[in-house]
């Protein structure tokens, strides 16, 4: 059973989810939904608790940050869905890595998920909270030009089996292709997660489709971003589409050795 999906909560009942560092409570009271969240800030927390049907008393006071939403009498179902971050995530290899001329390398990393809570018919989004709030970071050639991103704390690994798997994170394979005639130094990489889809593997963990960054020039840090909307591993099922669709191959500023 996954932590996401639709959960029946009649009036007077509630449920509690534990998804990594995030605790989420939902209560169905007369005329309203009450959603409360709390985060312990431990990004290594791999806890996973999914409520049994009608697990908790819907009249209990909720800890954490509370949000209230009106509910039609016939709404007794709440839906939790995993979504990727709303901004690009910047990851880095363990130490600066050099890609040989005309060579390529694939890094494996993971990014934290957000939980989208919806209710009603048709489904309306109530709130969206991160399972773990990454730090903000700036990615760009200078402090006047660039974009606001999240700082991924998981280093990019060269072997997929080295990547720890957690229920509140999604794995991504990033391939960097160096089309130039000289070494390419990589200190940080930008993963445009807002353009990626989510897939669930047979083992229950989530992953995105692979990302390819290709450069044919020695100058600058502009790379061609290639995305195929197909997962890397076989036997997976699509869970969510991208927040923002990327229609065609896009040139992005995705690699950096700035601010040195």
């Amino acid at each position: 059973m996954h932590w996401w999906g639709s959960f029946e909560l009649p009036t007077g009942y509630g449920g509690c989810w534990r998804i990594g560092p995030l605790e989420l409570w939902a209560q169905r009271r007369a005329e309203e939904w009450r959603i409360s969240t709390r985060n312990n800030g431990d990004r290594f927390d791999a806890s996973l608790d999914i409520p049994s049907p009608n697990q908790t008393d819907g009249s209990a006071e909720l800890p954490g940050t509370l949000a209230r939403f009106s509910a039609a009498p016939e709404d007794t179902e709440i839906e939790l869905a995993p979504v990727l971050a709303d901004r690009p995530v910047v990851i880095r290899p363990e130490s600066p890595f050099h890609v040989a001329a005309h060579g390529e390398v694939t890094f494996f990393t993971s990014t934290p998920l957000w939980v989208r809570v919806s209710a009603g018919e048709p489904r309306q989004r109530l709130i969206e909270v991160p399972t773990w709030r990454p730090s903000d970071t700036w990615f760009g050639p200078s402090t006047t030009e660039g974009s606001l991103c999240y700082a991924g704390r998981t280093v990019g690994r060269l072997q997929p089996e080295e990547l720890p798997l957690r229920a509140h994170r999604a794995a991504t394979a990033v391939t960097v292709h160096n089309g130039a005639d000289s070494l390419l130094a990589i200190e940080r990489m930008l993963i445009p997660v807002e353009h990626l889809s989510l897939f669930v593997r047979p083992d229950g963990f989530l992953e995105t489709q692979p990302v390819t960054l290709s450069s044919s020039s020695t100058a600058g840090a502009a790379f061609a971003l290639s995305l195929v909307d197909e997962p890397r591993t076989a036997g997976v099922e699509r869970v969510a589409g991208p927040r923002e669709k990327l229609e065609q191959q896009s040139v992005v500023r995705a690699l950096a050795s700035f601010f040195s």
Partner: protein
Amino acid sequence: MQWLSDLIGWLSIDTARIALKVAAILATGLLAQRLISRRIAALQKRFVHLATLRPVASALILVVSFIWALAEVGVDITVLVGAAGILTVALGFASQTSASNLISGIFLMGEQAFVVGDVVKVEDTIGEVLSIDLLSMRLRTFDNLLVRIPNETMLKAKVTNLTYFPIRRIDMQLGVAYHTDVGAFVEVLLAVADANPLCLEEPKPLIIHSGFGDSALLFQFSFWATRESYLDVRNAMHNEVKQALDTHGIEIPFPQRTLWLHRDENGSPPTQP
């Protein structure tokens, strides 16, 4: 059909033709003024500075139409032009400051160093730009006061746009006791920055040893935040740094003086010189 012949006869007279021409010129002028005014109003959403040009453009079109109509009627406009010239000189002397403000406003518009909505600092005044008008600009200070600054002053003064770039650096000045382990102190500060998600990871926080003060080792702790979260991060980081220093027993000393007491070899206090 007599009336038709009378009408045709009347239309053939020059007077009627001239009257029609004048009416056409004035109508065209009014129509042009309306069209251009509407076009500028539509462009104002993108280029807010055009608000100051709209009345000027409207007046210019109407005046030109009026003078052209007078010329058709047969009025000697050279007299008018001459009178206008004298009037202009008189007005020019009387309105030097206004003209300077107007021209300064045009230059400011062209430079685009700030737009409506930006937060700027002009001399000692900090506020949000509410409007950039023909002769002046208006700021709303953070304690909700309206400040009007002539455009000429704006052009001459040093203006700091606090919201031009998307990220800003915050500098915190700190002093710690001389007996402090500097390495541990630096680690504490970096941990505080690392723990605050609104404190940007890149550009990296920076710690500069400013010098050796009278009472403390002086440091500058610099870190970055987005312009939207600048105030929140600044407040939070000051509080969090204080808490972290207290937790780790790192002292921020009060101003100190060291008093040396001397006695001579007999144990007596030194005599007056």
